[in-house]
Each structure stands twice: as structure tokens, then as C-alpha cells.
């Protein structure tokens, strides 16, 4: 114990039998199980724990909870290093490593504390006033400089090695806070049979009961606490979640929570997440989050050793650590006196009690006498001394005289603010309570009630009473029969008289309103003088309340200073709206497993394994992985492989997976009518057993998607969509059916995943197919011509669909089988095609062949092109209405000058084309006004042995034969190209029909 000079020999909720080693700034210390990092540092006499944001002033521990603005440390090392963690809520573990922030070269000797000497330049709005111009200096000079000087902690700079989870929970009653009010509420709701979830951010349940010496029913409160926890544990539908912060209240009873599953361990256990982000759906909720104590603004109120009185009491009573040997109490109310009493009873000295109220009653006088403390009724602390460690305070007595008192702890008590943050997450505003001198919840979000201190009902008796009553009410609202109301437990007497002191004027030094962002009372006054009086302006101009603590200890003091300055009351001055999250939440906890490649799902075609065996290189296409090309040994670049694949298709036969195309089954007596209305072309005349190319527009007249649709029966169609748009088209068709034309007799279902589909292309395609199609089916050119579709069987009775359609321009088929047969289909086709040298080809070769044939694809269907732009104007029916028809006829969309679809070839065949190059007239300046369009797709044709391109250019087909520049400044490209037909290979289509 000698290593912990400020540790009490007994008392508190720490386990002195379990000693934990930890280090701070490289120095080793010991603490105990049950400590926080802050309590362990205090027990070791470490008072200086950080430097402030702007002035690099020495700072110590102010609080004992989540509101801490000063004791921010970097926790852990390496990839797990985490900046800005609050030492007051970090649960101590063996081997913990922490480091102070914002100091250079060391915490005790910090060169940048000189900022304090130039502080007149760093007042409110200094960013706006100082770094005005030139604008270029921002990036190069000002920002790096400011970031180095005024940063907070450092991020790890390496990938987080831990994983995070998302989880969901449902309950009748959610209780937020495990103090006396929350426990009483959970008990009342639980006894009524409600499914209850009780969350508390602390690792130990009990709230302020853990920090106070109180009695319930004539016994120490710890006995009531133990009995209550035992009963809650015995109720099967009550779930207790410690280390879990409810950080946000969202619409319809949804609460966001983060559970710190492994933050109290050196690293997570195997298969355990570091944190878990919860979404809790609650029929009713009870906010029992307690209250946060308020500091007082006076000169030097940030010296290490100045601490909130309630926090000082917490360190003594809960952690068995004396935060100082010689205490001065500066209090504006009754509550602070409990700190003096508890410190004295733990063996600390109380040198003086400064009660700002003019009269001290006989009882308090007697207590001061008993403690041996000088009593300054009607006095105020107006200054501190000691720099890195408080060594005394200056007190202005009621008479106006000043007195100096030596001390190493100044406990400050100025009343409490209800922790009502969640009540304003849905825009409800807190209201000022004159009697309580604080904001209390105003109107409440649906389903939420507020108990105890969070409602401004600060006494223990009120907390227990509220909890029991609201717990029963919530259970009843959730549809249960509330258990009978038992007597509310009796508590020992307490008073909470208060006359808050917002600031002590007069002294010269800095008096801080917002500790974390280094905002002083002078900054707030200056902002008010400069006209930034509305509280939202004040906040942004001074940065008051905008640090990671979101002003938990500063917002009210800031309002009070402005109110004083402008001669208004606090409620006239305003309040700030609290938004989620209540305390910082790691992005990881919100993302869960959805990071990296797991950000979204990956879909694999039913032929994926086969493709992988064939050595495929895969490419992402929407959510799908598709085979891009199939390199063979010795092929060292992708173009060599793709050229081989293309030539193999054009001279023999190739197969390619096309399973990823969207497939939508459309049935009903109005199916043809439905297609008439969604496609620009006609469908009623399409015979059964035939396929047709279809193009659909959005209602604004631009092209949405294309594909082939086959008529399988009189009232049965199968639509295909592009891979990328499958979901979007399905949603669009559902909209058309359900919203626009519910009277049509039609049903739609996506069958994309039910069918595996392969393209078999090349002069030997039919002979290959013959080897897998059952002999009963005639697939000769006569019996099964171009665009024929038939339901057949393959491999001895396996149901299949055969489509004679072609994207490559070759004799080609698409064969579809139920998805589970996809793998077998590919293997069977490979065997059947072996005599013809069958070659698997991927999306690259597919792309080359479609450019050779001038087919439009994703690059052309960009959402900015019309059917006319793509040379498909003649497909648009004039006889019927369809989605987008009227809007496609708007003047700007039919302008002659719109860039339209043609082909391009380099004048020098050795030159490479680049997609994205813009067309500029030869001899014209490369400026926007001369832009004539751009290259949408390019490919190298092994057939023609030069590059070819597709693109959109003003004038389009009318300019075939003309030459223009393809200007590509991004890649220093500037070459001359000739405008040509977009069909580069077999323009007559002879191959298709062979």
C-alpha cells in the first residue's frame, strides 16, 4: 500500500486483495480491481494528468464520470492506441498503459504552454480574425500549425485489430441508468412481468449510491442495493447491461446503445468483440440518468487539485482514495457539505469551508467547528495558486477582505444539472426551473418518462419514489398488469438548499467556462459584445460546448455569463439542444462487421467454383464477383489473355457465365400490356417462343436499362436486366404495377438467383450445344433460328431454357438451368466443346466483342442519355404510352445538336484510345465551349488489330468520316480519331444467323 500514498486503508468498493499494475507516461504504478484510471492515479498522488487544448495549461481530474473535460488520455499502444479517453470512466486493468496528451516535450515541462503568454491573440473567434488571408496559407501554413499546437490525442494510425458487432434487442421497458431511481423502476416493472432491459454506463450498478454514505430503511444503502440487485437477477425477464451507454433516442422508441464488451480487458477474449453497438426497441423507457455537477467560474479554476465536490466524495467513498490532504470546500449549497464531512471522516483535513450563502445555520457552524475548518459564510474563492499542483486559494470574505488558505484540494459545489440529454434528442426543449436553478425536462418524446435527479428531483427519497411509480406506469403502458405498489423505502434526512454562483468576478487570471476547449469568461463576454448573443452563435464563435464533452460542465455557465452581460435571465438567453450521441461512440461500434470487404455482401454466381478452377481473375460488378478473364500460364498481361479469348470465340467457341444478369418472371393475362407500358418498343406482337431486345426509360425520359425479354407463353414473359440494375428495375416494375396500374392482371417475381445461365458463342456453338441438349430437341438453324426461345431438357431430363441471342455478334445461345445445376452445366459444356477447343471467356472479352458490334452497355446507359442519343430512336413506339415517352420528347432532349452515339478509330492505327477522352475540333482550343462530347467505351480489337471506341459526339452519325481530336488531359492523351459506324465487325450480321 505504501506505493499508493493517497489510498485509504479501508473502505470503498475496491478489492485491495487484487493489485493491478499500470503505467502512465511510462512510469509504473499500482491500483486495485474496482479502480478507474483516474482513481488509481489520484491514489498514487498523480495530480497533473494533461495539458489543455489551446493554452496547454496543466490540468488535473475534475470529475468522476463521463462529463470529464480535463483528464483525457491516450490509452493502450500500437494499433489499439485510442486518444481522448476519459480517465474517469476507464476501468483499470492489469497492464494498462496510458499517456498524457497535448504536451511537448513532457507533461511537466511543456514548451507550448507559452501559448498562455500570447493568449490575447487566441481569444474568441481568433480563427476567424487571424487566419483570414491569403487563402492558400490555410492548407500550407495555418492549419498544420494549428493542428500541431492545438490538437487532442493521436489516433492509432493503424488498422484496428479488434472487431465490433451490431446487435438488436426488444423490450417492454428500457431503464436508462442503474442508480436508485433506475433500480427502483426496473424492480417495479420487472415485478409486473415486463421484459426489462436496464443499461448503465458504469461497470458497477448503483449510481450515486456507490459514492454516498446514505441510509435506506435505517440501514446502509449498500444493503438495499445488494437486495435489489439480487431480486432483479432472479427475475427471468430482466436483463442487466452494465458498461452500456444509451447514447441516442431515435424515432418510434428506438434507442442506440454501445456496450463496452472488452474495454476493461487488455485485449478482447477470442471471438469476443471489443464493443457492441445495440439498437434497442422499447415500448416504453424510463430515463434515470442522474445529474452532472456544475463547476464555478473563477480565476484559476482549472488548476490540478480543483475538483467537483461530488467527485471528491466519490473518490473517497467509492474508491478509497483521498484526492487531497488539505481540503478547501467552495460551495453554493448544502450538498457540498457532505464532501467536507466524508473527507474528514476518511482522515483528510478540511482547512476551510467557503459557503457563498451569507448565513450559515447553527448546524453547519457546528459541523465546521467539529471538522476544525475555518468557515467563510458569504465568501468566495477568487483565485488559486500553484501552477502544476494547487497549493492554496485566495478567498474574498463577505466583508471584502481577502484571506489566503493553503490546500491541495479545492472541492467545488454549485448544484447539479439533470442529465436530461436524451429528452431533447427528438427536439423537445428543456425548461428552466427557478426554484431548482437548473433546466429540467420539458415536453417529452413519446414513450419516455424521467425519474429522479434526471427530472430535477434530486433527493434519494424522490428517486426511489419516482422509480417505483414510473416503473409500474411503464409496465401498464406496455400492456401488463402492474404489481401492487409497496411502500417506498424510507431514507435518512437530506436537504438541498442552493444559491448558485455562476462566476466570481474581479481577479486577473483566466477563469474557465469550458475547460476542454479553453473558453474563458472573457471570451464569452467578448463574443457577446461583438454581437454573438444568440446561444447558437455564441457556441460556434467561441467553440463553447463544442469539444468531445459537448459542454456537459460548461453550457450552463456560458449561458449564465451571457445572461449577466446582456441583462437577461438564463431562460431568456436560451439553451442549447442536445443531439446524439450523449458521449463519444467509436465508429467501429456503429459499423459492426460492415467494414472492408464486408461493408456489403458479395454474391457469387452458381458457376463461381468452376470459374475459379479455370484460373479466373474476378471483378466486382455491383455486388457480384464475375470472371473478368482466364489467364493461361505464360500470359503475362491481361490484353494477351483477352485477345486470345476473343479470337477463340470468333473462330471456334467460347463460354461465359451470364448468371448475374437480372431475371424477372412476369405472368398474367395483362403481362404483354404491362411490358408495352414499361418498354419503349412493342410487345403484344411478339410470338410465343421468341425473344426481343427491350429498352426502358425513366419517367424523365432518360434511358434506365436494357435487356432481352422472352415470351415463354401467351401470358408468361421472362425479362432480363443488366447485372448492375437488377434490383433497381425490379423496384421500378413493382412501382409501375402496384402504384400506377394495380388494375393490370400481372405478377412479378425476381428469379435472378434461381437460374444459372451461360453464353455459348462462336461458329461451333451449335455443335457444342448438341452435346448437352437432349436429342429430342431440334436446335438446327431452321428449327431454332435467331431469337428463338424454348423450354428444353439437357443432360438427360434436366429442365432448361435455351435462348438464341447474341451479344458477341456470333452464332450464340444462352442456356439456363436451375441454379444448382450451374456447375454441372459448365463442366458438361466444356466436355462437349473440347473437340472444338472451347474457351472460357470473361467480362473483358465480352466487352471487346460488344464494342466490336457497337452494342450499348453500362458506360452508355449512364443515366444522362436518351434512346435517341444511343441511336435507338427508331425503336420508340409512337402508337402507345410508356414510361418516359412524353418527357423524352422535351425540346432539349430532341435537339439536333445533342451528342449521339457513333464509333471512333485512331487515324494512326498504332495509337491507343482512352475512355473519358473529350472530342475537340482539330485546330480548336481545348476549352469547355469547344467540347463536342466524350468517348464512353474503348477496346482493342484483335480482329481489326487496332483500338476502337464508342462515344457520344455532337452531330453523331451525320459526321461519319470526319476527324476530331480525342483530348485526354488526365493521361496526356491528344490524338486524332475518325468518326465511324459503331459496328466494327460483321456489319451485315451474317455470323449471327449462321
Amino acid at each position, binding site marked *: 500500500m505504501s506505493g499508493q500514498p493517497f489510498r485509504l486503508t479501508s473502505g470503498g468498493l475496491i478489492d485491495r486483495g487484487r493489485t493491478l499494475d499500470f503505467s502512465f507516461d511510462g512510469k509504473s504504478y499500482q491500483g486495485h480491481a474496482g479502480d478507474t484510471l483516474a482513481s488509481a492515479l489520484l491514489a498514487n498522488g498523480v495530480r497533473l494528468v494533461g495539458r489543455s487544448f489551446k493554452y496547454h495549461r496543466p490540468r488535473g481530474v475534475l470529475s468522476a464520470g463521463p462529463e470529464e473535460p480535463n483528464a483525457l488520455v491516450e490509452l493502450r499502444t500500437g494499433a489499439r492506441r485510442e486518444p481522448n479517453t476519459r480517465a474517469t470512466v476507464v476501468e483499470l486493468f492489469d497492464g494498462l498503459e496510458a499517456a498524457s496528451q497535448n504536451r511537448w516535450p513532457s507533461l511537466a515541462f511543456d514548451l507550448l504552454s507559452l501559448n498562455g503568454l500570447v493568449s490575447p491573440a487566441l481569444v474568441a473567434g481568433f480563427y476567424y480574425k487571424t487566419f483570414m488571408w491569403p487563402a492558400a496559407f490555410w492548407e500550407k501554413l495555418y492549419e498544420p500549425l494549428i493542428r500541431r499546437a492545438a490538437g487532442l490525442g493521436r489516433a492509432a494510425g493503424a488498422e484496428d485489430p479488434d472487431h465490433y458487432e451490431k446487435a438488436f434487442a426488444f423490450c417492454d421497458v428500457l431503464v436508462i441508468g442503474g442508480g436508485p431511481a433506475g433500480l427502483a423502476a426496473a424492480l417495479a416493472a420487472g415485478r409486473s412481468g415486463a421484459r426489462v432491459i436496464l443499461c448503465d454506463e458504469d461497470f458497477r450498478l448503483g449510481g450515486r449510491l456507490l459514492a454516498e454514505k446514505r441510509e435506506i430503511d435505517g440501514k446502509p444503502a449498500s444493503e438495499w442495493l445488494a437486495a435489489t440487485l439480487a431480486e432483479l437477477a432472479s427475475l427471468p425477464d430482466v436483463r442487466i447491461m452494465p458498461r452500456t451507454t444509451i447514447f441516442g433516442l*431515435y*424515432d*418510434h*422508441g*428506438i434507442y442506440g446503445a454501445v456496450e463496452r464488451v472488452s474495454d476493461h480487458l487488455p485485449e478482447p477474449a477470442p471471438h469476443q468483440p471489443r464493443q457492441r453497438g445495440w*439498437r434497442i*426497441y422499447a415500448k416504453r423507457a424510463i430515463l434515470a440518468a442522474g445529474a452532472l455537477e456544475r463547476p464555478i467560474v473563477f480565476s484559476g479554476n482549472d488548476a490540478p487539485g480543483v475538483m467537483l465536490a461530488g467527485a471528491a466524495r466519490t473518490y473517497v467513498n467509492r474508491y478509497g482514495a483521498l484526492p487531497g490532504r488539505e481540503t478547501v470546500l467552495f460551495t453554493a449549497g448544502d450538498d457540498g457539505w457532505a464532501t467536507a464531512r466524508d473527507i474528514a471522516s476518511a482522515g483528510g483535513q478540511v482547512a476551510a469551508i467557503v459557503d457563498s450563502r451569507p448565513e450559515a445555520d447553527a448546524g453547519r457552524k457546528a459541523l465546521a467547528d467539529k471538522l476544525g475548518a475555518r468557515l467563510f459564510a458569504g465568501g468566495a474563492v477568487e483565485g488559486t495558486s500553484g501552477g502544476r499542483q494547487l497549493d492554496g486559494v485566495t478567498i474574498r470574505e463577505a466583508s471584502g477582505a481577502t484571506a489566503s488558505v493553503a490546500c491541495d484540494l479545492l472541492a467545488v459545489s454549485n448544484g447539479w444539472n439533470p442529465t436530461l440529454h436524451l429528452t431533447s434528442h*427528438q427536439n423537445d426543449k428543456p425548461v428552466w426551473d427557478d426554484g431548482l436553478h437548473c433546466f429540467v425536462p420539458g415536453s417529452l418524446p*413519446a414513450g419516455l418518462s424521467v425519474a429522479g435527479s434526471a427530472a430535477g428531483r434530486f433527493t434519494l427519497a424522490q428517486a426511489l419514489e419516482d422509480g417505483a411509480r414510473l416503473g409500474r406506469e411503464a409496465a401498464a403502458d406496455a400492456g401488463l398488469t402492474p404489481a401492487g405498489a409497496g411502500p417506498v423505502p424510507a431514507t435518512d434526512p437530506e436537504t438541498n438548499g442552493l444559491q448558485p454562483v455562476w462566476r466570481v468576478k474581479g481577479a486577473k487570471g483566466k477563469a474557465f467556462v469550458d475547460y476542454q476547449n479553453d473558453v474563458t469568461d472573457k471570451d464569452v463576454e467578448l463574443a457577446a459584445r461583438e454581437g454573438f448573443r444568440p446561444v447558437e452563435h455564441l457556441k460556434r464563435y467561441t467553440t463553447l460546448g463544442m469539444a468531445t464533452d459537448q459542454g456537459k460542465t460548461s453550457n450552463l455557465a456560458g449561458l449564465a455569463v451571457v445572461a449577466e452581460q446582456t441583462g437577461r435571465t438564463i431562460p431568456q438567453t436560451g439553451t442549447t439542444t442536445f443531439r446524439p450521441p450523449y458521449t463519444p461512440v467509436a465508429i467501429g461500434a456503429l459499423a459492426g462487421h460492415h467494414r472492408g470487404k464486408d461493408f456489403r455482401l458479395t454474391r457469387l454466381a452458381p458457376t463461381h467454383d468452376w470459374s475459379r478452377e479455370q484460373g479466373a481473375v474476378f471483378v466486382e460488378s455491383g455486388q457480384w464477383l464475375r470472371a473478368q478473364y482466364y489467364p493461361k500460364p505464360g500470359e503475362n498481361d491481361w490484353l494477351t489473355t483477352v485477345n486470345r479469348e476473343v479470337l477463340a470465340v470468333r473462330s471456334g467457341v467460347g463460354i461465359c457465365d451470364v448468371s448475374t444478369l437480372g431475371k424477372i418472371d412476369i405472368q398474367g393475362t395483362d403481362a404483354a400490356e404491362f411490358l408495352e407500358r414499361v418498354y419503349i418498343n412493342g410487345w403484344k406482337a411478339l410470338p410465343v417462343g421468341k425473344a426481343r431486345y427491350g429498352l426502358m426509360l425513366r*419517367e*424523365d425520359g432518360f434511358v434506365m436499362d436494357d435487356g432481352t425479354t422472352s415470351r415463354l407463353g401467351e401470358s408468361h414473359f421472362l425479362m432480363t436486366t443488366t447485372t448492375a440494375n437488377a*434490383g433497381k428495375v*425490379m*423496384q421500378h416494375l*413493382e*412501382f409501375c*404495377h*402496384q*402504384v*400506377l396500374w*394495380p*388494375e393490370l392482371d400481372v405478377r412479378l417475381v425476381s428469379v435472378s438467383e434461381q437460374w444459372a445461365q451461360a453464353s455459348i458463342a462462336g461458329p461451333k456453338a451449335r455443335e457444342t450445344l448438341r452435346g448437352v441438349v437432349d436429342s429430342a430437341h431440334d436446335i438446327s438453324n431452321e428449327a431454332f433460328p435467331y431469337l428463338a426461345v424454348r423450354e428444353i431438357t439437357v443432360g438427360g431430363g434436366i429442365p432448361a431454357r435455351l435462348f438464341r441471342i447474341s451479344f458477341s455478334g456470333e452464332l450464340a445461345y444462352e442456356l439456363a438451368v436451375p441454379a444448382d445445376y450451374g456447375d454441372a452445366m459448365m463442366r458438361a459444356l466444356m466436355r462437349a466443346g473440347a473437340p472444338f477447343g472451347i474457351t472460357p471467356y470473361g467480362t473483358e472479352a465480352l466487352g471487346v466483342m460488344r464494342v466490336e458490334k457497337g452494342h450499348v452497355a453500362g458506360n452508355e446507359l449512364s443515366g444522362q442519355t436518351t434512346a435517341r442519343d444511343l441511336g435507338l430512336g427508331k425503336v420508340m413506339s409512337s402508337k*402507345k*404510352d*410508356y414510361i418516359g*415517352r*412524353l*418527357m423524352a*420528347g*422535351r425540346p432539349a432532349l430532341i435537339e439536333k445538336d445533342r451528342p449521339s452515339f457513333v464509333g471512333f478509330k485512331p487515324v494512326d492505327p498504332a495509337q491507343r484510345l482512352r475512355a473519358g477522352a473529350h472530342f475537340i475540333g482539330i485546330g480548336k482550343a481545348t476549352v469547355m465551349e469547344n467540347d463536342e462530347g466524350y468517348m464512353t467505351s474503348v477496346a482493342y480489337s484483335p480482329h481489326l488489330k487496332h483500338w476502337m471506341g464508342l462515344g457520344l459526339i455532337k452531330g453523331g452519325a451525320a459526321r461519319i468520316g470526319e476527324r476530331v481530336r480525342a483530348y485526354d488531359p488526365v493521361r496526356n492523351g491528344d490524338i486524332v480519331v475518325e468518326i465511324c459506324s459503331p459496328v466494327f465487325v460483321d456489319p451485315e450480321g451474317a455470323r449471327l444467323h449462321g
Partner: protein
Amino acid sequence: MRITCPHCGARDAQEFTYLGAADPQRPDGMAATEAAMVDYVYLRDNPAGPHRELWYHGAGCHAWLVVTRDTRTHAIASVEPAKARKAGAAA
């Protein structure tokens, strides 16, 4: 938010996709003026208060729903299938 789908029950809003106002009726493209179609495609009110709007239950039953939601509070007064609404209006 949660939306109570008539087919699937109360579901998280993440399962749904928002489209916009439910009441604009698509004009007959063969008969309507361009101005009427422009109005239908682009122009929407932005009410502060009850709003009838279309949501698509894409991660559920694929129903298009007419949700009446107060834009100030997100309180949802009713949810009905778009299909039923149209059929009801026609009858």
C-alpha cells in the same frame, strides 16, 4: 423509425426505401400536356405536417406502401398498401 408494414408487421425503416409524395397521379402520356407531366415528375410540395408518401418494402414483402407521416415528428398515422388504395379509389 419503424414502419408497420400491413404484411410484415413493425419493421425497422432500414428495410424500406423512400420515394416521395403518394398523391400525384401519373397523367396519361398520350393525352397530357408536357407541363402536366413535368409537374408530375418534378414538382412536389414540402409540407410541415401530415404527408402521404410512398415507401417500398424492398427488404421484406416488396410492397409499395402509402405511409402517412408527420414530417415534423415522424409520427406515422397510417400505413396501407398502395395497391389497395388505388383499387379502393376505383371502386
